[in-house]
């Protein structure tokens, strides 16, 4: 049942108008670029791939939360402070108060999501832009984290989590690795390199797939399904596209937005839990600038800062691009300051093309 009067868009045109298209092309381009200039330096050896995919996965975890929140029409600038805070909660709970690690992890999730809810509640209640409310929160939470850490432990960096995490049942879901047997077998078969001396002698250079990667992939799939296949996804788009119209249609806009603030905090907490349990330490200054990096991934992924338009897959691709470029410049020995120049340029290009594409798709003047 098609009607001749409906102008059919060509397949290529439809594809080009998908929000994640730019990020997809970007990932291909940077991969080709670094294959050409950095492959000799080991960037695409197993350990090299693990290196940049872990960095990309870190970006992806926080980008997923920021993506849904941005589509719902809000920002959270306190993501970085939330990472520092929740990591410190875990470290203080288990190292200072001697609680089991899993209790510390649950405590960190409960507290950070409660703070996320409070954040969202403030934005909704005051009607102020989330930009300014969460900017205030960025400072408040960072300051409180340092204060909490100094008054209880006299330190701002707590280490020694590693042995505790290894004995815990919950911590390996954040700091552990999967398929270690498989990687050892691949090492034994000579398919991937093994260490030839030292305490790791005989072990493969990549010992498994870090839990972080599963979190990143899992969160992207979950959020993409939620956004594009469930009623709640429609509500997120509606809340960000036209909150007034959504409310008239009976959408609980406030609840949707507060839930998205909580989800963003959840993602920040996952990031922190992985970091603390894998590397064994927490710092009150962890997560600095992460809120902006998350937003950049989301915008590269095709989302609009004004809300109502975007893609989780796009944000994930943005995170991969981010990780590949950051680590690629490191592998190719380029001056690391160039990374920021590149990032800023990329952000500008992404914003300009997104706005242009949106005008083509949705129509101007609203």
């Amino acid at each position: 049942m098609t009607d001749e009067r409906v102008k059919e868009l060509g397949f290529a045109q439809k594809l080009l108008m998908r929000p994640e298209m730019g990020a997809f092309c970007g990932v291909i381009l940077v991969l080709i670029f670094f294959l050409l200039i950095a492959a000799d330096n080991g960037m695409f050896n197993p350990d090299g791939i693990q290196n940049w995919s872990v960095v990309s996965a870190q970006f992806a975890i926080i980008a997923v939360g920021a993506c849904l929140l941005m589509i719902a029409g809000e920002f959270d600038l306190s993501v970085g402070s939330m990472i520092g805070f929740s990591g410190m909660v875990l470290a203080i709970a288990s190292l200072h108060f001697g609680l089991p690690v899993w209790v510390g992890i649950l405590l960190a999730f409960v507290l950070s999501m409660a703070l996320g809810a409070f954040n969202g509640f403030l934005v909704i209640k005051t009607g102020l832009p989330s930009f300014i409310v969460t900017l205030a929160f960025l400072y408040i939470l960072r300051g409180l984290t340092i204060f909490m850490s100094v008054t209880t432990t006299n330190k701002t960096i707590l280490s020694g989590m590693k042995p505790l995490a290894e004995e815990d049942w919950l911590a390996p879901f954040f700091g552990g690795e999967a398929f270690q047997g498989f990687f050892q077998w691949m090492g034994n078969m000579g398919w991937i390199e093994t260490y030839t001396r030292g305490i790791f002698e005989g072990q493969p250079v990549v010992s498994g797939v870090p839990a972080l990667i599963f979190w990143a992939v899992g969160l992207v799939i979950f959020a993409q399904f939620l956004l594009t296949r469930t009623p709640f996804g429609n509500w997120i788009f509606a809340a960000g596209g036209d909150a007034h119209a959504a409310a008239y249609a009976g959408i609980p806009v406030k609840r949707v937005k507060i839930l998205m603030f909580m989800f963003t905090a959840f993602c920040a907490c996952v990031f922190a839990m992985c970091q603390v349990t894998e590397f064994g330490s927490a710092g009150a200054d962890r997560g600095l600038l992460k809120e902006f990096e998350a937003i950049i991934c989301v915008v590269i992924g095709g989302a609009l800062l004004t809300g109502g338009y975007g893609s989780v897959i796009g944000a994930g691709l943005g995170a991969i691009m981010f990780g590949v470029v950051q680590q690629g410049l490191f592998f190719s020995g380029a001056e690391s300051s160039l990374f920021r120049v590149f990032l800023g340029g990329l952000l500008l290009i992404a914003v300009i093309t997104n706005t242009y594409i949106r005008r083509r798709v949705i129509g101007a003047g609203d």
Partner: protein
Amino acid sequence: MQPPPLPDPILSLRHISKSFGGVKALQDVSIELRPGETTALVGDNGAGKSTLVKVMSGVLRPDEGQYLFEGREVPVNGPRDVARLGVQTVYQDLALCNNLDAVQNLFLGRERTGPWWTGFRVRRAECERRARDVLRRMRLDSIALDRPVGAMSGGQRQNIAIARSILWEPKVVLLDEPTAALSHSAAEQVGALINGLASHGLAVLVISHDIHNFVLENSDRIEVLRLGKNAAHFRSGEVTGEQVVNAMVGGKEGVNSAA
């Protein structure tokens, strides 16, 4: 000559008053809507038309007055209560989300989902089928279902807003200035659509400024508000445009109150 017996009103508001601060937007206003009839609500700017529609749709709560549905007084605490009675409203600004497509807009907030093990996945195919049915019944087959409504023309957007209101088989439809921003031909199409609703037994209320071209041709009765009060009411076949306009601006009040 005896007028034909009228069906009982399905929705009636009695003695409604509503003030905003010191401004009395509505004073002791009453209105009745009957099944199968289109009532036009007319009045000058500031006469209280939109306020009255908002009271009828549950968005505003009146300071005084009764809300009767099918002869019984019903409690109205919000738009959801009214929607549950079977009263749907098409707002002047349409309340469509421009970034969503037609199907998403039609079902927004009332999506049909699969069971829990599908992750409450939206039944997109079923929604599309129902949307297409409704649009075909409205003779609107040319609307693309999968494009953002922001990219559509004013007439198409108006039609989608009306389609959304009748998707749930309401008994009463309230339309706030459905033709205000439309071209002549698009307005005619909307008029035909509204006539179709009434002929299917719905009670329709429509606000319009276009007395000569729209109201006289597409309504059965005309209710005139002036300065927040009932000024007159007419049967559309028994009145000229001039008489209606006079009642609106207060030339000769209540010329014909026979209806």
